[in-house]
């Protein structure tokens, strides 16, 4: 009962528009006040919740993406992707997905992809005569590849809350990320044929080669990250710092588009963005304490054990729950509040935590495409000027490819665990 009241109050506060993290702090302090204990430890719990070395990777990966966007590296990646697949029917749709795949190797954020690459992609597609609903939907759908292919802020947070190797999570996301890209490209091919979308002239080999060399330093970023982590040179957190330094270095040496002002703005904005996430992490620390006191994990586990009698049934129940919640609640909140309760239950069903993590991350990424709380839709709508309502309808068929990949990953765990097990 107490849990229902806490959850209900929190939901009401959030729906009214109270910031998510602040709403958690409101409700938690109310609980401590009502229970007559716990208040004197509130600040200590909030600070201790943030005092985690792996969490440092979050601001650092956000900063790396911000620098790459500020330095105009996205232009080079888009140009290279266009030279590679622009000549196929509906070429710019494929370019959109391929550029997102390239960018995902440097950025761990779907919204950095949708906001950074999205504007450029949609403008190019408009000029070439593509429909807005098609361009906007592909941009939103392809942005979900970002957090699947390393680096990934969502995976860093999952690694922290589930206490699993972030490096293994990074590797586990590669195959599902590539599968998502392939599934989206299949869908693009079908629609492009039906609507007779245009194609670019085929680029010459020397031109492709020139664009490849121009993009190569940026394309090497994931190798630096994964190579560094698995060769033992650095931890994922340190890899994030190296990515920041690498982004600055390649701009200084190759691209030379980053100014001091742009760099400072990227740092300034990142610190505020990271603080916004930190508020939620601090709020979650208070919630976790209450959940533990009220034995929430045990109660929720009982519910799942009652409705699921096999790992697959459990995964189906979890996926349905995340999908429905994801339509209304921000993905980050689901990850930080609900997933920590689910991870131990998944273990009792014998599900590999890496496998479970990849499923959760993929489903959370689908949730950023689902209206009414699809944040990727908001961002694409904002950068392109396509009305949100139009995006909300247009995105629906584009949910199919990632959902198909999600089903495949649920049924065939090797898709998520195969690559990490090779390196274990």
């Amino acid at each position: 009962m107490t849990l229902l009241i806490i959850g209900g109050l929190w939901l009401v506060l959030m729906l009214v528009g109270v910031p998510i993290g602040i709403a958690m702090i409101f409700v938690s302090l109310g609980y401590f006040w009502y229970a007559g204990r716990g208040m004197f430890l509130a600040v200590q719990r909030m600070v201790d919740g943030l005092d985690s070395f792996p969490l440092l990777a979050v601001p650092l990966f956000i900063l790396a993406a911000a620098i790459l966007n500020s330095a105009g590296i996205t232009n080079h990646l888009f140009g290279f992707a266009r030279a590679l697949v622009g000549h196929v029917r509906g070429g710019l749709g494929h370019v959109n997905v391929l550029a997102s795949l390239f960018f995902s190797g440097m950025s761990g954020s779907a919204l950095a992809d949708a906001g950074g690459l999205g504007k450029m992609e949609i403008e190019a597609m408009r000029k070439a005569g593509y429909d807005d609903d098609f361009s906007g939907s592909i941009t939103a759908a392809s942005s979900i590849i970002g957090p699947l292919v390393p680096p990934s802020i969502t995976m860093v947070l999952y690694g922290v809350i589930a206490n699993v190797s972030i490096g293994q999570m990074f590797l586990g996301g590669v195959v599902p990320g590539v599968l998502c890209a392939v599934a989206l490209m299949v869908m693009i091919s079908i629609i492009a044929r039906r609507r007779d979308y245009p194609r670019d002239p085929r680029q010459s080999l020397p031109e492709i080669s020139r664009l490849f060399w121009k993009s190569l330093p940026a394309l090497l970023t994931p190798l630096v990250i994964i190579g560094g982590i698995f060769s033992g040179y650095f931890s994922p957190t340190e890899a994030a710092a190296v990515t920041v330094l690498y982004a600055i270095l390649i701009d200084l040496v190759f691209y030379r588009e980053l100014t001091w002002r742009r760099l400072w703005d990227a740092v300034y904005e990142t610190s505020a963005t990271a603080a916004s996430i930190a508020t939620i992490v601090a709020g979650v620390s208070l919630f976790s304490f209450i959940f533990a006191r009220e034995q929430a994990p045990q109660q929720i586990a009982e519910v799942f054990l009652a409705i699921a009698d096999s790992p697959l049934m459990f995964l189906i129940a979890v996926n349905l729950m995340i999908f429905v919640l994801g339509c209304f609640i921000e993905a980050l909140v689901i990850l930080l509040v609900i997933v920590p309760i689910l991870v131990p239950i998944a273990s009792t069903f014998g599900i590999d935590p890496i496998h479970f993590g990849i499923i959760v991350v993929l489903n959370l990424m689908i949730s950023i495409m689902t209206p009414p709380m699809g944040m990727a839709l908001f961002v694409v709508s904002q950068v392109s000027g396509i009305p949100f309502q139009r995006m909300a309808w247009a995105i629906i068929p584009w949910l199919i490819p990632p959902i198909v990949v999600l089903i495949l990953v649920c049924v065939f765990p090797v898709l998520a665990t195969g690559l990490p097990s090779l390196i274990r």
Partner: protein
Amino acid sequence: MRPSHRYSPEGTASAILLLILIGIVAVQILGRTPLMQGPVWTEEAARWVWVWMAFLGIAEVERQNRHLRMGFLGAMLPRRIRTVVFTGVDLAYLGVMAQLCWVGWQTVERTLDTASVTLPLPTAALYGSAFLSSILVIHRIVRRILAGESGNIDGSEVL
């Protein structure tokens, strides 16, 4: 609401701490190479700098009014009702932050004699971040209420 000034002291301090954080992590990596003797303080220093950066940044987020929120229901309210509702929310928020400020100060006092593991500082220096942050946030909320801008929702998203 967008702030009239692009940068603020708390935002600038938070951004500088982010740069320091990168420097500390870089020292930690270099410490594992033959170039340097591996320092033991880097991990704890990095964590503390991150906590300070986050708490100072929260005050900046408050200034920019860009906390992560689900503002669509609130945004549907008529302007005047929204202002009244959010002024009420801000007043409650003030109360919560005042409570956190008090608890934060008590935490600082309680941990003054607890030494950090590797840094020459008491752990009170870590918990002081939340205390200072709550004062800065209170300052921003008061300014927002006085300016009649409580109903200006400008949610932002980060992941």
